[in-house]
């Protein structure tokens, strides 16, 4: 039981607990907080794997910007706790068992021990920020410029959608 395995299990348990809490919480703000816990746990897992830049970007962008957007919208719309209507029985009877079956199938499909690609040394040596940025700006420069267009379109779309009439 190496320390890394212990840390992995702690963070994995935290992530799964956050995801289960997302399902069972009635108020969307509690679901949002559970999702933030999941994201921070995943950032910890990225750090454990040696992907330090991705971990930092996950917290800064996902946890610090996207989830803040969710929390703002929940506060603005004054979302209340969910009500349970009769229509959700269908989801309970058919959806949840099918969802659990899908999870079990996926997990079983990938749980076979990998052949030779097990644990190739310390990946932190491979993943300094410099190498990632060189890859982005040399091999992946075309998708990078496309994402800048995507963000521009998204900003314009969000402004158009959320602006009130007559402005």
């Amino acid at each position, binding site marked *: 039981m190496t320390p890394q395995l212990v840390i992995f299990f702690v963070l994995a348990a935290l992530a799964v607990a956050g995801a289960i809490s997302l399902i069972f919480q009635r*108020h969307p*703000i*509690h679901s949002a*907080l559970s999702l*933030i816990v999941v994201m921070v746990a995943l950032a910890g897992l990225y750090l454990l794997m040696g992907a*330090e*830049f991705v*971990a*930092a*970007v996950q*917290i*800064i962008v996902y*946890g*610090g*910007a996207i989830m*803040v957007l969710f*929390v*703002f919208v929940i*506060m*603005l719309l004054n979302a209340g706790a969910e009500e349970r209507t009769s229509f959700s029985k269908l989801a309970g009877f058919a959806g949840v068992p099918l969802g659990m079956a899908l999870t079990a199938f996926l997990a079983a499909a990938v749980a076979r021990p990998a052949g030779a690609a097990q644990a190739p040394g310390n990946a932190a040596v491979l993943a*300094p*920020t*410099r190498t990632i940025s060189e890859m982005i700006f040399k091999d992946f420069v075309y998708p990078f410029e496309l994402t800048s267009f995507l963000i521009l379109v998204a900003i314009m779309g969000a402004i158009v959608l959320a602006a009130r009439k007559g402005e």
Partner: protein
Amino acid sequence: MTFLNAHAELLITLVKIALLLFIVLTVNAYLTWFERKVVARMQSRWGPHRVGPYGLLQPAADGLKFLFKEDPTPEGVDRVVYYLAPLLALALSLTSLAVIPFGPEPLRFFGHDIYLSITPPDLNIGLLVLFAITALSVYGVALAGWSSNSKYPLLGGLRSSAQMVSYELALTLSVVGVLLMANSFNLKDIIVAQAQHPERGIFGWNIWPQIIGFLCFFTAAVAETNRVPFDLPEAESELVAGFHTEYASFKFAMFFIAEYTSMITVSCLCTILFFGGWLSPFPASWTFTHYLPSVILIPFGLWVIWSGIRYETIFGRVILPGLGTVIALLGLALAVFPGVNSFIQAPFWFLAKVFVFLFVYVWMRGTLPRFRYDQLMSFGWKLLLPVSIANVVVTSFVILLRSGWK
């Protein structure tokens, strides 16, 4: 003994954490005293000067008040989030101090190297960790405002968190110039990159090539920490008290400590990024400047003794000379032992620069009026963000030209 040796790293880290927490909380407390004194002097009045000699026990009195005051929970609040918000704010601002290096060389203690920072000095993303924590600290404010189940805190919380999110962009972009010059996110490497020409002293720091970056960074950081002139969402005369209206004694104290700790973190970051961190402003060949800490401390200690002997109350006449003696002996010890002298240079300059920045923060509090909210938001988006981006572009062009278009 072998148990201690086997788990030495863990124990050293735990002791460092406890020590840092103790020091930071004490510095916070006396920072409030300092702020009240300085702002009072700027307004031609005494500050706190009754509770203890020169008001030095005022923070203790405030702390006791916060502990013993009634702590009501308003009706209809969301319990979990209401209790979580100040906890989150405090935990995040205290965590951000873990990555700050206070000095380059480790202490040698019984065969173990003790570095002057909680995280090891080879943390390659030190600066990104600080930005990540800044990004998460928006939640403390937003959730506090929302969970209070009341109009004014909700408005104050939303405004304050919108302000923090807006200025976060300018904050991170204004630092990119420094990163381009230092080629690393590691805070120690950034300081080492400013020490490339030790003979230049103060002229080798990042402030000269990155003056615009520094101004953008400092402005954005003041807005991030919700201090004057950007403190409209929490000012007393505006939205009642903003997002912490419904918070009483101890939870309000947690917000308070979180704000002052983030002030300290921002000051540390300013010195590391732009003012050379622990580097001395004098050229490295002027080794006589190594006695500067003693030259400052010994006269200060003697002045404290002298003014204490003639103080009004008996308590002051006992405490102040004792304090002065301790300070003077510390200064003497720094001068006499050469090992201590060379070790203490780096932390001394670091702490002196942090102190200067804290004074600038308090100075701004005493002098500047506050922005209106729409002025604040248009300043952040329409002026600060384009200037930061322009700084990045100009810096990268200059670096490219210097390396000959390779």
